[in-house]
């Protein structure tokens, strides 16, 4: 099994692992000293008959030694920490490539220069250094993709920045790490690292406006989307103005997962989600619209066209 922190996929995470190993050696050394001492004491100094043991009360040299040695060790660790911190957190002197905004309970990913926005699935090109800005729309959240870089809080009124650069193409696990209310557990996300070509085509696909539905069922679904309250929270480019309260659905069908990684993005799951969101993600702000089976099929058919 490869633990995320021990399996870095970026220079940033690799630096953190390097520091991790260094500190582990120090900790293992101290733990070994303590454990061996305790074991020796238990083996050697168990109750002995014949009077009380030597009533020794201290030894100044020993005290100085076990103050000085840990002092040196923590000084070393401090120096290594500074080296690592400077390598991971580099100065920010340009506009961010991506802006991640935490919402209760999903992530918005905005690409300012490409003018696209998506949710819960952040795409990045392999090998390119990405500057990520992390904000929040409500409470404090925390962006954590352990194989890629450090975590950072999303704090109201602040803009935080982190760097990351994926070494190879993969889908990386990410989570909101700061407790943020009812559905903190399903505020997961993924970072999809792609080679330059597929990243470029992903950007182009996301930039395109939503396709007009062709089938009757999907057309009915599109009408429902406008007539019902969906559009009050969700944006679909070409249908209504910029709403940011809920995930942008312009290309919802292109995403791999639904509802903060709660479900695989399949038509059946999408339909279940629309039928009763709170049965799947209790506390979610997505209301139960009491759609009939026909409505559900039409709505699902429409959303599935949004590639």
């Amino acid at each position, binding site marked *: *099994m490869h633990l995320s*922190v021990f399996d870095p996929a970026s220079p940033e995470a690799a630096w953190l692992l390097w520091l991790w190993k260094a500190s582990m050696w120090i900790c293992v050394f101290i733990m070994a000293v303590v454990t061996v001492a305790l074991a020796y004491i238990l083996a050697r100094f168990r109750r002995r008959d014949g009077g009380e*043991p*030597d*009533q020794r009360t201290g030894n100044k040299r020993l005290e100085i030694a076990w*103050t000085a040695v840990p002092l040196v060790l923590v000084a070393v660790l401090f120096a290594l*920490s500074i080296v690592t*911190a400077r390598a991971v957190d580099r100065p920010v002197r340009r506009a961010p490539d991506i802006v991640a905004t935490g919402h209760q309970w999903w992530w918005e990913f905005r690409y300012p220069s490409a003018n696209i926005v998506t949710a819960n699935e952040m795409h990045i090109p392999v090998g390119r250094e990405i500057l990520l800005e992390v904000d929040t729309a409500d409470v404090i959240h925390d962006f954590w993709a352990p194989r890629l870089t450090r975590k950072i809080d999303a704090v109201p009124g*602040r803009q935080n920045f982190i760097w990351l650069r994926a070494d190879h193409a993969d889908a990386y696990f990410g989570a909101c790490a700061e407790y943020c209310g009812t559905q903190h*557990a399903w505020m997961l996300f993924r970072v999809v690292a792609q080679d330059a070509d597929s990243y470029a085509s992903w950007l182009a696909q996301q930039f395109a406006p939503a396709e007009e539905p062709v089938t009757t069922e999907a057309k009915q679904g599109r009408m429902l989307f406008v007539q019902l309250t969906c559009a009050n929270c969700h944006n679909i480019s070409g249908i209504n103005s910029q709403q940011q309260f809920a995930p942008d659905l312009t290309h919802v069908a292109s995403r791999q997962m639904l509802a903060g990684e709660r479900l695989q993005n399949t038509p059946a799951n999408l339909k279940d989600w629309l039928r009763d969101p709170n049965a799947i993600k209790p506390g979610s702000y997505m209301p139960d619209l009491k759609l009939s089976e026909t409505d559900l099929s039409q709505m699902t058919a429409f959303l599935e066209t949004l590639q």
Partner: protein
Amino acid sequence: MSDVPIAPGLIEGTAAHPALQSRRLEWVTTVDHKRIGLMYLFATLIFFVVGGLEALLMRLQLAWPGNTFLSPDAYNQVFTMHGTTMIFLVVVPLLLGLANYFTPLMIGARDMALPRLNAFSFWVFVFGGILLYLSFLSGHAPDAGWFSYTPLSGKAFSTRSGVDYWALSLLGIGAGTIATAINLIVTIVNLRTNGMTFRRLPLFVWMVFVNSFLIIAALPALNASLAMLLIDRQLNAHFFNELGGGDPVLWQHYFWSFGHPEVYIMVLPAFGIISEVVPVFSRKPIFGYGFVAASTVAIALLSLGVWAHHMFVVGLGHPWDYTFGASSLLIAVPTGVKIFNWIATMWGGSIRLTTSMLFALAFLFSFTIGGLTGVTFAAFPLDWQTTDSYYVVAHMHYVLFGGTLFAVMAGIYYWFPKMSGRMLSESWGRLHFWLMFVGFHLTFFVQHILGLDGMPRRVYTYPDRPGWAVMNMISTIGAFVLGLSVVVLLANIAGSLRSGPIAGDNPWNAWTLEWATTSPPPEHNFDLVPPVRGRRPLWDLAHPERSQV
């Protein structure tokens, strides 16, 4: 202040009043530090069982991925109540209870300096705890976590009254805790018996003394921030609201400037217990008395300057990270000094492996792990990976359970004979010990690994990623072993109270003054306080020819 605190007639007069003659009322009206201490222990035991049951509910929900035993809303209330209960209603008052019972006895005094203030602190704590649990009757317990970060705990995101109950009850308990700290300081400064200089003070008393100053320094920060939170919530102020010119990060600064000293408030008296138990069962005096006492002072001072290490991922900037990383790394040094001194105390001794000593050894082992994982947070770039994950859950339980609670268990097995007059059963004790030791490591060790694999804390469920289901199941099984160990402890206490062997004055052949009186001690504690000419008055009495000064 140097007078004997209560005129003997005062208590007798109260007891003689016909309306107050019932035995139950005697407990309610008592100002005797021993009875108050026992009531602290009893109340915290009840809260410990409640908090433990909450933990079991959480572990049941997390036993496998996608479990629907608890709704997210219920889970969030339960984990908030578990943390709040264990910290504010169990660990701190448990240590205050022991301090209450044993500080006057160990310094040869007849009571605390301010007995009625003492009773006030206790009752404020009890009613504060009840107030917290009344929140369930309002329909919704607090669910913003035990550190209630704003803006989540603000009116906009916590619309129900749970957080108000939380803040009000902690405000009351906090006031009581400060009163107890003042009481302990006044007692230790003024009521030491003849010859009991500060250089001869038992280390438990030393640590209680230092701890009391820490409480006075830290708790007001909590109370002030709770008041501000209440004003924000009830009167629409904007202390923590960035849209009104406040700052949610301010809450974190205020809360943790209480909250990290609080960690040491929860651990220093435990260090004190270990510093009493280890020498007695090694048949040697403490190694490096001066260093153990001085390192306590160092820890207390440093602990006031490490709070922002809870905030390394807030984005305060590198100057903050460097400063608080450095201070947090430094605090490891005096803590390490203590560990080495306890080991040196045992070295060359004649170890008696009583249940109390077993717990002291388990403390040394488990607390060292917890301390070392603490060092990996102080190396702040590692905190950027591991904070708010299950790794931090494992770390703090190694400190507070493997550390403080194991030390308290050592203290309970050590002092139960003094408090009750009867011995706890050693064979039940060993069963309790092994269940608790194994259950503890089973529950919490795998949580380190879960955290390192990316599992965030405070989640009501989790995706079925490789290994997560197995590790969570192991943790849940461990938690139930822990639950069983507590049942064994309760059975041992109940059985021993009824029919345990009579303890006598000094069953462990210990050296401090509490063992120079009867078990349990009379209301006035001592008929005659033995002369104090060294750190171990009873050892000196037994070895008049080798008396150390």
